[in-house]
């Protein structure tokens, strides 16, 4: 038996997805995913920060450890793997490739000059398993697609490539639905891009009962005659109906037998609650009009007013971003021919609710839910490696203009309107009046009958005959800190129970640790000796040990 396999890899901020393909038939054999990123933290900046503090080498190793673990669970003979294609944003691909990342961590010239950083090209690359430390046949080729520009990565290229609109006439909006949402407006092939720092609320983080999509999380809500019905993810990550509750009290109206118990709510669930709450007046920004100012869902899952403001500001970043793009490009939102929603959240969110809360333009008429385009493009590369050259020329030849939102005066004006809405409760009519006053377009009203095109059933359309395998990732970081008195203050302060201490050796589980967004361990240390950056992977410790032993 001389099967040849290819592996398509997507390194996303919220997890790794891998698929094995039979190169002869181009069929998917199996799929393996993780439910979180192996590095501590909730967003790309956390990952970046971690890499800068702990070191690029350690970070690269942690990532590759996880990827090796994931591809092992694909259930194929890795010796027969001849092609691997990987896709993701510039940060993830640089960590995978083990190249410079600091140019992505700082903006402007000052920090980069001081650190003497030369931004790498991030062109299309073919590398070897040995160079990146991937445990497959040593002769396999590894394809890394190019970034469009250094801040707009291969994931954005995948989104544009799979939407297949670069050569079409018309106006198209393509939006990724992540914490750092890449948004592109394409006008007859001319591409305007930006990246909206929506924030982790969009993925259910920074929300008191929020969780990444995982079994037992509420991912959608449906309006019924008597209340809201929850939709909960089961153990296979499929949606199931849950209880019907009165959201202002949490009283169960009808209980669903054998429903999964809710352990929290995903970003799409929060958006659903936000949309329904705004519609029926339960949410009157920035307040929740229930007796205790909370929205209550099944099994004591609830949303606070702070959660509402957080999700609101995240959604506001989307709206301010696409409005800025439209103003920069001089087109009207209502003239957009089709809106494409990419990414897992963009696939599982109810587009009508997205439209209702302004995450996509309310006037959107044709809406496509594309699912995971990064993984799809990686699959395409496995099947036809010559695509890599095409992508390179596509990326470099793209007539594109990147709008840096943080320095855009249009964005600043519009975002201040968003803050006014979500933090201060400015009415929407006034928002539109302000846009008008600034000389910008108003947000056109809701389209009468939006058409939703959901091409697949899942964000990953084909799981393969071997099915889906969920891989647990996580490594241990260790350190002994000089001056540590074993007082365990760090352990007590860790909100995720990620720390253990054995004889002065501190161990941190990366799959639990929230990383640089938290740092409660280091900050709480009474003697200030806990240095997060000194933590090392067990392997490195062993290697260091071996050296001293010699």
């Amino acid at each position, binding site marked *: 038996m001389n099967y040849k396999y290819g592996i398509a890899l997507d390194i996303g901020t919220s997890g790794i997805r891998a698929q094995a393909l039979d190169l002869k038939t181009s069929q998917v054999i199996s799929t393996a995913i993780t439910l979180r990123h192996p590095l501590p933290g909730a967003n790309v900046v956390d990952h970046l920060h971690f890499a800068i503090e702990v070191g690029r080498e350690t970070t690269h190793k942690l990532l590759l450890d996880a990827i090796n673990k994931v591809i092992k669970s694909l259930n194929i003979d890795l010796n027969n793997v001849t092609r691997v294609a990987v896709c993701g944003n510039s940060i993830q691909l640089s960590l995978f490739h083990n190249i410079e990342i600091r140019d992505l961590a700082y903006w402007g010239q000052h920090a980069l000059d001081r650190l003497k950083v030369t931004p790498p090209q991030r062109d299309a690359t073919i590398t070897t398993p040995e160079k990146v430390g991937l445990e497959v046949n040593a002769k396999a080729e590894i394809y890394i697609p190019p970034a469009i520009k250094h801040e707009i990565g291969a994931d954005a290229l995948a989104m544009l490539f799979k939407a297949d609109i670069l050569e079409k006439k018309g106006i198209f909006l393509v939006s990724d639905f992540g914490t750092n949402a890449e948004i592109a407006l394409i006008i007859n092939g001319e591409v305007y891009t930006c990246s909206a720092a929506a924030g982790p609320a969009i993925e259910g983080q920074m929300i008191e009962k929020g969780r990444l999509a995982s079994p037992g999380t509420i991912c959608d809500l449906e309006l019924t005659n008597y209340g809201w019905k929850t939709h909960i993810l089961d153990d296979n990550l499929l949606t199931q109906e849950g209880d019907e509750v009165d959201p202002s009290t949490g009283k169960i109206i009808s209980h669903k037998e054998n429903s999964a118990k809710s352990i929290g709510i995903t970003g799409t669930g929060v958006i659903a609650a936000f949309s329904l709450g705004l519609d029926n007046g339960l949410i009157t920004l920035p307040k929740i009009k229930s007796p205790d100012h909370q929205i209550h869902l099944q099994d004591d899952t609830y949303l606070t007013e702070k959660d509402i403001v957080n999700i609101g500001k995240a959604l506001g970043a989307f709206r301010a971003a696409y409005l800025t793009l439209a103003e920069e490009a001089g087109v*009207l939102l209502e003239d957009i021919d089709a809106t494409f929603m990419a990414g897992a959240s963009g696939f599982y969110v109810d587009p009508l609710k997205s439209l209702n809360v302004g995450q996509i333009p309310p006037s959107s008429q044709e809406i496509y839910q594309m699912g995971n385009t990064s993984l799809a493009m990686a699959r395409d590369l496995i099947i036809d490696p010559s695509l890599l050259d095409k992508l390179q020329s596509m990326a470099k030849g793209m007539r594109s203009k990147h709008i840096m939102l943080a320095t855009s005066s249009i964005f600043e004006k519009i975002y201040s309107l968003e803050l006014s809405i979500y933090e201060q409760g400015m*009415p929407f*009519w*006034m928002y*539109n*009046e302000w846009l008008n006053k600034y000389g910008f377009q*108003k947000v056109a009203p809701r389209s009468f009958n939006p058409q939703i095109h959901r091409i697949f059933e899942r964000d990953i359309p084909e799981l393969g005959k071997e099915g889906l395998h969920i891989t647990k990732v996580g490594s241990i970081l260790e350190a002994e800190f000089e001056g540590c008195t074993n007082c365990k203050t760090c352990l007590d302060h860790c909100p995720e129970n990620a720390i253990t201490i054995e004889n002065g050796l501190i161990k941190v589980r990366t799959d639990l640790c929230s990383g640089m967004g938290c740092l409660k361990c280091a900050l709480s240390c009474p003697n200030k000796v806990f240095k997060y950056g000194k933590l090392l992977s067990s392997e490195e410790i062993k290697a260091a040990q071996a050296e001293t032993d010699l």
Partner: protein
Amino acid sequence: MKRFTRMIYKNPEELIFGHAKFPVSERWNIQFGAGYVVPEVKVAPQEGSEASKEKMVAECRNIAQSACKRAVSIGLPSFMLEQEHVFQQTNNPEWAAECTQIQAEILERYYDEYGISVALRQTPADIRVEERAPGLRGSDYDNKIEETMEACAANGASDLCIETMGGKSASDYGISRGDIKAVLFGIGVLGSIDMEYMWKRIVNICRRYDCRPGGDTDCAQANTAMFMAGGLLDKDIAHTTAALARAMAAARSLVAVECGAIGPLKDCGYENPIVKAISGVPIATEGKNAVCAHSDLMGNLTAAMTDVWSNESVYHRQEMGGTTPEVWLQATGYEAALMNTAIQTGTGETLRDIYTLTDKYRDPQGLILAYDNAYRIGEAIVNYGNDPYLRARAAALEAGKIINEAVDAGKLYLTRFERDSLDNALKILEELPMDSDQFTDECLRTYTRKVPEFDPKSYEL
């Protein structure tokens, strides 16, 4: 065509229910605006009856039968039955002919047997589609409307009405975006042009039969604004904006009368009091007894100068008190009885004023339709009577003035949304050109691009 450049009424005090300067007589011994108010009932065929002609004819027969039976059961001296067509009725003139015929037969039987004064109003549907070539003019649908009108007139309708849709593409765009210029263009310019096209033909048909040309309503535009404005707490569009749209609608709906319509004007034209003040024709209106069809904020006020009091529309079905034609005719019938009692006992003015005061300051939309204010808007219209654009603009500006005066007098309070929307709209309206061609050119440039459904050819522009 002669435009109104002077008020037929010389004093708003003369405006009162049951009385019009130019009363209308129809067959079966009924008069409108001749010193008494006629109740109206209108019932929509139930779903499924459009499946075949036979079903539709039976449905229309049952509706007429129920209404007549209840009218004599409770002792009504007169009533009007209106049938508003569903698409199939207008699209198949032979359906319309048979439906009309059977309803006329039933009414005539009751007229013969009991001496009850009756009228049969047929309202074909405006089934034209602007965005489908060749547009509003000369399409199959357009021709079908004309054929159906004739079929109704020939088969016993005592008057004809229609709710024309001209300008709706532009005004919908304007209403949903708070773009007052588009609203004015849609209602004042396009609506008026399309009315002229439609009404000259209807009046011609009526001349050949014993059938009166009734009137038109700006249901497609000003009522859309009213529905979207919704209740006091809704904020989709400001109630002040809806009030301005209503004032413009009067300038537009007047065109039917200028083309030869003599009334009673169509019930859902909330702008009718203004048209009556200008032209002296009797009007049908609706309010508190039309809650089955929609919710407005002036349920009593609209009765103050009505001649035909209507229930607007309700599905044909069973209620606890009988079928809907029975129940709703009873409601409008008793209200008309109240007004007629007031007329004969010399307390008509008091009742009119009470009707008016209950709703005058409930909402700006009611305020501008109170008879004294309706009269003022009428004056603004006839001031620019020869120019449909300028008179619609003047109507809106006058309505704005009326609202502002009430606010300044501390009689009506506005929210910030209502206030800002009104200020913005009035500012835009004031700055518009005083030349109708210039305005039309500007609008053609802007809205042919922004409103894909809008087709200038439909208005010969």
